[in-house]
């Protein structure tokens, strides 16, 4: 199941998570900064849990360092799936 996820699917899943976190829909996009969307470290821990549930990919604290945008988060998941 994990290896079949496409980049678009993962991106859409991250968008959906951000919406659940309370980010404004019109702010959400591939290059939107988490900080600008008021998404903080607690939200990112939840995002990591979602990613693990859905794609079987474990993201640790150090993996998330420097992950400041949706694009970088999706890159990270793709590289782990790779």
């Amino acid at each position, binding site marked *: 199941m994990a290896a079949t996820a496409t980049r678009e699917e993962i991106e859409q899943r991250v968008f959906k998570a951000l919406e659940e976190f309370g980010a404004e829909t019109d702010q959400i996009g591939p290059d939107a900064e988490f900080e600008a969307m008021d998404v903080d470290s607690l939200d990112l821990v939840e995002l990591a*849990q979602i990613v693990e549930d859905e794609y079987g990919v474990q993201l640790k604290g150090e993996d998330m360092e420097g992950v400041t945008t949706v694009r970088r988060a999706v890159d990270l998941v793709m590289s782990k799936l790779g």
Partner: protein
Amino acid sequence: MSRRAVITGVGAVTPLGVGARTLHERWTAGQSGIEDGYGRAGEFEPTEHLSTKEVRRSDRYTQLALAAAAEALADAGWDDAPPGDPERTACVIGTGIGGIGTLESQHIVLREQGAERISPLSIPLLMANAASGVVAMKYDLRGQSFGTVSACAAGAHAIGMAERLIRHGDADRVVTGGSEAAITPLAMAAFSRMDALSESGVSRPFDRRRDGFVMGEGAGILVLEEEGAARERGARILGHLRGYASTSDAHHLTAPDPTGRGAARAIELALGDAGVAPDEVIYVNAHGTSTPLNDRSETEAIKAALGEERAGQVPVSSTKSAIGHLLGAAGAVEAIATLLALRDRIAPPTLNYEEPDEGLDLDYVPNEARPLQNGAARAVGLCNAFGFGGHNAVLCLEAE
């Protein structure tokens, strides 16, 4: 001149609905917010009051506090921030248990899915100081901010502490009150196992047939301001927090001292703090839980503190007859109910009171509201709050 605390805004979410005046009007009209043995804040829909992010990042008890705070601050004529130095603005909000709903749901996650699946929001949601922290954050209140924890006296302790912060000069204004959301499986089972909950599901304080309290939920928030600062900004003043006192029974883990001695001392000290004589008190909002023990010892306490004669003359009623027991929110919600009753010069009723109990012979204002006798210009009343652990807190309020 000494610094005095005035009340400039109130807000409440209770089983009688959303709004402090809704509570006052419906209780005065004899309506009950208790259904099927629960006092749920059923009219409260979090998403109508809070953003998606706020809802996600708060336990229900904090959501109730946020909604009550929004009403109280608007009532006080505040915008989204204090009308003075934020660093001189404090926030003290009590709770009996805090985010027990979060604690329970996360414990299920732990058991069923493992530690890795525990929400990183668990602690910030369940902690008993979350309401004060979140309210302070939302409105930029940068002075002292903390929660008070004293079971069913917590809301009254918070308000008393707020008054002291103003009187002592530590703050010029305080957002204060109490909040609780403990209609949860564990809390219900636990209170039930100690025989504290009503089996009949009827809250009938002081009645011979009373058989325990009915669990309620909600929040009450008040805005207290230093009188001079409030008058200077042209604030509408609802009333004064004239006095406050707190004592401990040092008697039993849960049962009140049957003589009511500790509670009586709290009432006497609150009157002394306010500089008010017993015959000036025209209304007592009782703790009145509908438990066999409280209502008897509280009756004794009122008699001891006011004197048998005066105690027999003063209307004494229990808000819990209409909304159940809001635990750590009770003292705050009932302080608001007391204030609005005094303003309207009306004693709201003790509902479901039909059969007198031996020795419980005060004027409990059975079932119908009644005008308060008020020869003097000022209307002074007492609000009692007592908690498991032997905590007694009493507020003396005066309406404008």
